[in-house]
C-alpha cells in the first residue's frame, strides 16, 4: 500500500510529520506493509494535511487529517472514512486548474529524480541543449511569458539583453524572496518540485551563457531552503548540471530585498539598498556583471515552454497576458490554496466560485490583490478579468498573484494605516518620499482615524500619496499609495466620510 503524506511547510505546520509517524506506527502494529511517500502539497491548503492512498482507481484523499483519523485509514470501507474526499484529481478545485508550471506539484516526491524524470522532468533542458542560445531566448519570447515577480516584464527580452551582453562571467539570479503577504507559490514549487526551478535556471544559463546561478531565498522559509539545497546536490551529483554552479543564499528578513537591485546588493554582502536604474541588472547586475534576475515562477515556467513549445504556452491567456498564472487564494477564504489557471478568469470567479467566499462565512468586503503594494478591490469590481492590463486599468496590480480576502469585519482605515506602517518598517531609506512619506502617512491616518480635521487630512494624505507615487526610487514607496488610495476611494465610510452611494457599490 502506498500512502502519500505531504511535507511542504503548510502540511508540516499542520502536523503532517506526526501524522506520517502515526501512520507508520499504525501500519506496523497491524502488520500492514505500507510505503509512506512524503510528497509535496497539491496546494489545496484547506484540506491539509491531505493524506492520499493509492488505489486501482487513482489516489483517494483524506483531509484535513488529525491523529485520531489515522486508524480509519486501515479500515475496510475507505469511502466511509469521516475525512474522505474521494479521488483527489476529481476535486473541483484541482480539476478546474490548468497546471502547466505546477503539473507535478503534490504528485511526486520532491527529492526523487526518478519521479521527476518519469513526469516529463528535464525534457525542456534536453531540448534547450539542442538549440542555439538565441533560439532559446526566442522561444521564451514567443511564449509571451512575463515576469511573475510583479512588474510583468517580458522574460524573453530580458534574456536576450543578457545573451548579447559581452562579459567573462554572467549570472542567473532567482528571486525567491517572496515577501508579499498572501503569496506562497514560490515556496510551494520549491518545496514540492524543486527540480523544476533548477531546470528552469539551467535553461536560462544556456540561453544567456551564464555558468553561475544563485537563488536568494527568504529566511522565513526554512523548509524550502533545506529542500532546495538537497535537490541541488542531487541534481549536481547526477551530472545534470554540467558547467552550471548553483547555490542557495538565505535572506535576512528584509522585504525590500525582493526588489531586484536591493537583492543584488544583499547578495554582494551589503545592506539591501535599492540602486538607481540605469544601469539595468541585465547589463550590470551581480558584481557588475550581466545578470538575469527572475522570479521563481518565471523560471519554473520555462521547462514547460521549452518542452511543449512556446505556442502551447501562448495558446492560454488573454490579450498581452499569455500562459497561466498560479493564483494564490489567501486570507479569510474558505478554499484557500494555489490555483493555476490561464489569464482571463474574473476576480469574482476566483474568490466566490473557486475560493468559496470567506472562511468565516461572512460577506466578502475587500480583496487585496498583488501583495502589500497592491490595491484593494471591492465586490463591485469582481467582474475584472485576471489580466495585467485589466488590473492596471483599475489602478490595481496582479503582482505576484496573491489575493487576500477580508470579510465585513475589516476596518479599511486600519488596513491603509498598516500599508504605510509596513512601508516605513521596510523602507531601505535611500529615497525621501518612501522613508519619510510613509511615516507622515501613518501619522496623518492616525489623525483621520481619531476624527481630527478629517476632510483636510484626507486631502493631505492623497497629496502625500501622489508624491510617494511619483517621487520614490522603487515600487516600495511608489506603490504603497495603491492600497491606501483604493481603500479611501472604495470605503470612504471607514475614514469618517460619507459612504459611496449604493449604486456605485
Amino acid at each position, binding site marked *: 500500500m502506498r500512502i502519500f503524506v505531504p511535507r511542504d511547510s503548510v502540511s508540516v505546520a499542520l502536523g503532517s510529520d506526526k501524522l506520517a509517524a502515526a501512520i507508520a506506527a499504525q501500519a506496523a502494529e497491524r502488520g500492514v506493509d505500507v510505503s509512506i511517500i512524503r510528497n509535496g502539497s497539491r496546494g489545496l491548503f484547506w484540506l491539509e494535511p491531505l493524506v492520499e492512498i493509492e488505489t486501482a482507481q487513482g489516489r483517494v484523499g483524506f483531509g484535513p487529517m488529525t491523529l485520531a483519523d489515522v486508524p480509519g485509514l486501515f479500515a475496510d470501507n475507505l469511502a466511509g472514512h469521516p475525512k474522505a474526499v474521494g479521488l483527489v484529481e476529481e476535486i473541483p478545485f484541482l480539476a478546474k486548474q490548468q497546471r502547466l508550471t505546477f503539473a507535478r506539484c503534490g504528485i511526486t516526491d520532491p527529492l526523487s529524480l526518478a519521479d521527476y524524470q518519469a513526469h516529463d522532468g528535464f525534457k525542456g533542458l534536453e531540448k534547450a541543449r539542442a538549440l542555439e542560445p538565441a533560439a532559446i531566448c526566442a522561444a521564451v519570447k514567443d511564449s509571451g511569458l512575463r515576469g511573475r515577480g510583479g512588474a510583468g516584464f517580458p522574460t524573453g527580452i530580458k534574456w536576450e539583453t543578457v545573451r548579447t551582453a559581452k562579459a567573462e562571467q554572467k549570472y542567473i539570479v532567482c528571486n525567491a524572496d517572496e515577501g508579499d503577504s498572501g*503569496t506562497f507559490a514560490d*515556496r510551494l514549487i520549491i518545496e514540492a518540485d524543486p527540480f523544476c526551478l533548477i531546470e528552469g535556471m539551467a535553461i536560462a544559463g544556456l540561453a544567456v551563457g551564464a555558468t553561475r546561478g544563485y537563488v536568494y531565498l527568504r529566511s522565513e522559509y526554512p523548509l524550502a531552503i533545506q529542500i532546495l539545497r538537497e535537490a541541488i546536490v542531487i541534481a549536481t551529483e547526477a551530472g545534470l548540471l554540467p558547467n552550471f554552479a548553483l547555490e542557495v543564499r538565505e535572506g535576512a528578513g528584509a522585504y525590500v530585498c525582493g526588489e531586484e537591485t536591493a537583492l543584488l546588493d544583499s547578495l554582494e554582502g551589503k545592506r539591501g539598498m535599492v540602486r538607481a536604474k540605469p544601469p539595468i541588472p541585465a547589463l550590470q547586475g551581480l558584481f557588475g556583471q550581466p545578470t538575469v534576475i527572475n522570479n521563481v515562477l518565471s523560471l519554473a515556467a520555462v521547462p514547460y515552454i521549452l518542452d511543449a513549445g512556446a505556442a502551447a504556452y501562448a495558446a492560454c491567456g488573454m490579450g498581452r497576458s499569455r500562459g497561466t498564472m498560479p493564483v494564490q487564494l489567501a486570507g479569510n477564504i474558505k478554499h484557500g490554496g494555489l490555483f493555476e489557471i490561464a489569464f482571463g478568469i474574473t476576480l469574482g470567479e476566483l474568490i466566490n466560485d473557486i475560493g468559496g467566499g470567506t472562511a468565516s462565512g461572512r460577506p466578502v468586503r475587500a480583496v487585496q490583490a498583488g501583495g502589500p503594494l497592491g490595491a484593494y478591490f471591492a465586490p463591485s469590481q469582481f467582474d475584472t478579468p485576471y489580466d495585467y492590463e485589466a488590473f492596471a486599468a483599475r489602478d490595481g496590480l496582479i503582482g505576484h498573484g496573491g489575493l487576500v480576502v477580508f470579510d465585513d469585519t475589516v476596518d479599511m482605515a486600519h488596513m491603509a494605516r498598516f500599508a504605510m506602517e509596513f512601508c516605513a518598517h521596510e523602507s531601505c531609506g535611500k529615497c525621501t518620499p518612501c522613508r519619510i512619506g510613509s511615516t507622515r502617512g501613518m501619522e496623518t491616518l492616525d489623525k483621520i482615524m481619531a476624527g481630527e480635521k478629517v476632510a483636510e487630512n484626507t486631502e493631505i494624505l492623497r497629496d502625500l500619496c501622489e508624491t510617494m507615487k511619483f517621487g520614490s526610487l522603487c515600487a516600495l514607496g511608489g506603490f504603497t499609495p495603491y492600497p491606501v488610495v483604493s481603500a479611501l476611494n472604495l470605503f470612504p465610510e471607514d475614514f469618517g466620510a460619507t459612504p459611496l452611494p449604493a449604486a456605485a457599490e
Partner: protein
Amino acid sequence: MTPDWDTSRAEGIIAKYLQLEGPMLPILHALQEEFGYINDDAIRLVAQTLNVSRAEVYGVVSFYHDFRQAPHGRHVLKICRAEACQSMGSEANAQKFLETLNLEWGGTTPDGRLTVESVYCLGLCACGPSAMLDGDLHARVDLQGLEALAGEAV
C-alpha cells in the same frame, strides 16, 4: 543555550565561507546561529577578515531584521502580522497574548524563557494565523494555540 564568544571558533566558522562570492551574509548567519547574536567582537572580526570597515559590517547587521546585537530568550516565538493573517484575526489574538505575558513586541519574559517577535508572512497565508516557534512552523494558530506554543517553550 548558545555558547559564549570564542574568537578561534568564530575564525573557524568564518573560514568556511571565505571562498564564497559575497560571503558577508552567510558568515553573519553562521555566527548568529552559533553564538545567538552578533556582538562587537564578531563585528570586529568580520571586518578584519573581509577587509572592510567596522562601520560597513555594523551597517549590514543593523539593516537586516534577522540579525540581533543582543541575546534573546531561550525560545523565540515569531507571530505573523501581515495582511492575510490579519484577515483571520491575528492582531487581536497577538495583543491579548502579549498582554497575558505582559510583553511588548520584541520583548523577553523576565525569566529569559521566551522572546516574542513579529514576522511579516511565513508563506502559510491560506491557513492563518501563523507562527513559528524556534524555526518550527505552525498554522491555524488562534489565541489558545499561541498559549499552547508558549507552554511548550520551557
